[in-house]
């Protein structure tokens, strides 16, 4: 995956042909009518999703975007397909990071939902990204428990992704979750088995965060559209500090991600260990 380019013109034509701007969420997200996730996004028995370098993208920058697909957050994927995704990808590329590889995850609630985790592939091309995004099932579940399963994004990133960025360049990728609820605090082995097909260890959210942070910089975009979201935001700030970015308008998601990616990766140097030129290397 990831050997195609993000072509803004082709994206614009397709969006017009598909009617992304005018169609309802149900018409675009075709899995919704089937009330089930697309089989290709079922994480069961996936070993790894890989972000590899290619001739077209020699410096792939892995970016994971975990979209909350529960009841209160389903409009964000809709906004992304309407306008946000080309802004995000185009913005990153124009901002000086030519090789972004974006992986969509659909995040639900492992205590309540039928499909708490959906997984796309790392992609750089406009057509592929549109495909994974529109394939996502907006289950609109959630339920009245203590949060959503954002920690599943960390679990998947930590144990089921491989990236050339890290393996070849010792460079961390970026992981974003977007939502308005607190993170559930426990991921039981029983749930992991249910979702992934294997797994025998129960994790807390802090353990998984730590695991994910080994190879990703972890961010959460907190959408402050309700009192509950304001309370959740405090939790997130305590957990992630500055890496919890709070926004009032959900349409700012692409911009926030673009800014962070460009800030970290412009010129293809930062994000890796800063060697300070040759000065820190002892030469005999």
């Amino acid at each position, binding site marked *: 995956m990831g050997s195609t380019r993000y072509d803004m013109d082709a994206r614009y034509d397709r969006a017009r042909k598909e009617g992304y701007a005018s169609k309802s969420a149900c018409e675009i997200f075709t899995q919704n009518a089937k009330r089930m996730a697309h089989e290709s996004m079922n994480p069961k028995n996936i070993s790894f999703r890989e972000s590899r370098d290619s001739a077209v993208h020699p410096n792939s920058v892995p970016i994971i975007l975990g979209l909350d697909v529960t009841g209160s957050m389903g409009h964000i994927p809709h906004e992304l397909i309407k306008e946000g995704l080309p802004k995000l990808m185009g913005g990153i590329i124009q901002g000086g990071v030519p090789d972004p590889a974006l992986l969509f995850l659909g995040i639900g609630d492992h*205590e*309540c*939902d*039928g499909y708490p985790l959906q997984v796309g592939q790392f992609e750089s091309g406009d057509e592929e990204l549109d495909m994974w995004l529109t394939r996502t099932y907006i289950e609109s579940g959630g*339920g009245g428990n203590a949060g959503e399963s954002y920690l599943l994004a960390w679990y998947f990133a930590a144990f089921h992704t491989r990236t050339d960025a890290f393996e070849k360049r010792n460079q961390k990728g970026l992981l974003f979750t977007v939502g308005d609820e607190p993170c559930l605090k*426990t*991921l*039981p*082995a*029983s*749930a992991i*088995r*249910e979702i992934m097909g294997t797994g*025998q260890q*129960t994790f807390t959210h802090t353990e998984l965060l730590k695991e994910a942070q080994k190879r990703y910089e972890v961010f959460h975009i907190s959408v402050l559209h309700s009192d509950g979201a304001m309370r959740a935001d405090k939790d997130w700030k305590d957990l992630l500090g500055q890496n919890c970015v709070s926004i009032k308008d959900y349409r700012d998601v692409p911009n926030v991600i673009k800014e962070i990616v460009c800030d970290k990766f412009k010129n293809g140097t930062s994000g890796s260990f800063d060697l300070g030129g040759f000065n820190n290397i002892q030469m005999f």
Partner: protein
Amino acid sequence: MKTAQIIIGLGFGDEGKGITTDFLSQQNPESVVIRFSGGQQAAHTVMIDDKKHIHSSFSSGALRGLPSYFTEHCTIHPTFLFNEREELSKKSGNIELHIHPLAKVTTPFDVLSNRKNIQNLEHGTCGKGVGATMKRNESPFKLFAIDLIGPRSMLIEKLKGIANYYGFEEGEEIQNALQDFLEAIDKIDWKIEGYSYLDSFNNLIFEGSQGILLDMDHGVFPNVTFANTTSKNAYEVCKLLKIENIEMFYVTRSYSTRHGSGWMSNEKELILKNNEEETCIFNEYQKNLRFGYLDYDLLNYALKLDEAYVVANKKNLVVTCLDQLEEEFKVEDLDVKFDTVYGSYSPYSKDFKRIN
């Protein structure tokens, strides 16, 4: 020659396996009654004179005085088992129960997680932890009947692992659940025995649970039960014990039912009479019992399917609840030629009649 009588429900459960077991128990009082699928979620009703018992953790011969055996395919739940044992004692039923060492044990954590998971409810769970227990036993966190009589400290260590598997953190709720569970275990005189226990019996009644159409391999996923509800397990035990004389007793009501969600071929409101003793009343997990006219194609499907799992010398059919519906049973619509067809006309097995 030793005889095995295997009772199998042809529908989605609730066919009348309890009353059929009681009928055979009454005819063969020296038998043992063997449960070979499911566990504490069964609710097999037997009525004898003014006594009534709903069998779950004991086989349905218990009220009539026959001993019970649970095979390795079953689950057991010590707290439910203890409560039912008390109840049966009061009704002077037989509380002798032998359990295979590898029967799977449901813990309080299986029940709690089963009930917490909304997804399970949509799939038609009965809220007694059976599905969770079966699934957990595919993970490294297994618990078997033999563990109940092993060293207590080892049992507790295993239970802690199971609590962690479900993500329960140590706390008062967990401590209390554990306490009740261990107390129930202490109060029961466990008889954990392999299949050689069954050698001393000449007649073995195999009491199926649920129905063929809920089988994990043959029902319509995901509304299935985590068990083989065909003759598969019973026949395996017969082969182990070298029992060759096998008589089948297939059971259906005179109409279709389904308790819980999932596909039914012909759901319809039926006007029933004489059904005051219905066991399947509303419960918060499975909701109401659903009805429909009998689907003879589905009965033929279930009968043909079971031929894949058992070689039987005799095949009999039991049609229950014939007194509840003004609709004639059409045995000629079934492809199998039965040796005997019995009709049941009341909640009492004494009212069984041969109808072919």
